[in-house]
């Protein structure tokens, strides 16, 4: 257990509204990631962070922004939610073990955009 929590766990929102998902970790890990998971696509990286205020885009970053003002919190914001952003969102941290990275995931947030 890497001490990762996500909130909310479930959310239903309407098209065009802003939505913020929160990822919280308790073990001071430097790297944090946001993924979305959709059938047939595995996990796709949205954004990641390598330190406070240091973030970078992943492969599916359009329509999403992130912020990391504290080590323990990584926020994902959907500026104006669309139905295509209905998905399950996972936060992860990574740990370096002998030159390799191992990722540990939160429980996920199921987001439905109507």
């Amino acid at each position: 257990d890497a001490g990762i929590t996500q909130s909310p766990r479930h959310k239903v929102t309407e098209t065009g509204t802003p939505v913020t998902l929160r990822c919280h970790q308790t073990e001071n890990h430097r790297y944090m990631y946001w993924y979305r998971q959709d059938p047939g696509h595995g996990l796709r990286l949205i954004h990641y962070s390598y330190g406070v205020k240091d973030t970078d885009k992943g492969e599916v970053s359009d329509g999403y922004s992130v912020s990391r003002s504290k080590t323990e919190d990584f926020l994902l914001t959907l500026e104006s939610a669309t139905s295509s952003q209905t998905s399950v969102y996972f936060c992860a941290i990574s740990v370096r073990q002998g030159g390799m990275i191992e990722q540990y995931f939160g429980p996920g947030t199921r987001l439905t955009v109507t």
Partner: protein
Amino acid sequence: TQLLEQSPQFLSIQEGENLTVYCNSSSVFSSLQWYRQEPGEGPVLLVTVVTGGEVKKLKRLTFQFGDARKDSSLHITAAQPGDTGLYLCAGHNTDKLIFGTGTRLQVFP
């Protein structure tokens, strides 16, 4: 763009059968990992393979990394209902992981 294709996408088998899941890419990865995900939870790391040709065993699960470090396989011997889940491979790319498309396994008693 680096892609990892897994096959088969779905697999339904009876308890006691053997199975193999494949993870293929045209890109070389420095290491490759396998995760298992159960419904309503995040993926959990099973194993990391690093060296081309490497074979690792985890009880009834055998993982192999291709010689060219572009592909991997997961073999399960005598599958059990507890093996049911989504299996994901992931290739290591600098500070990120590239995940495969996933194989959903259902093992019936």
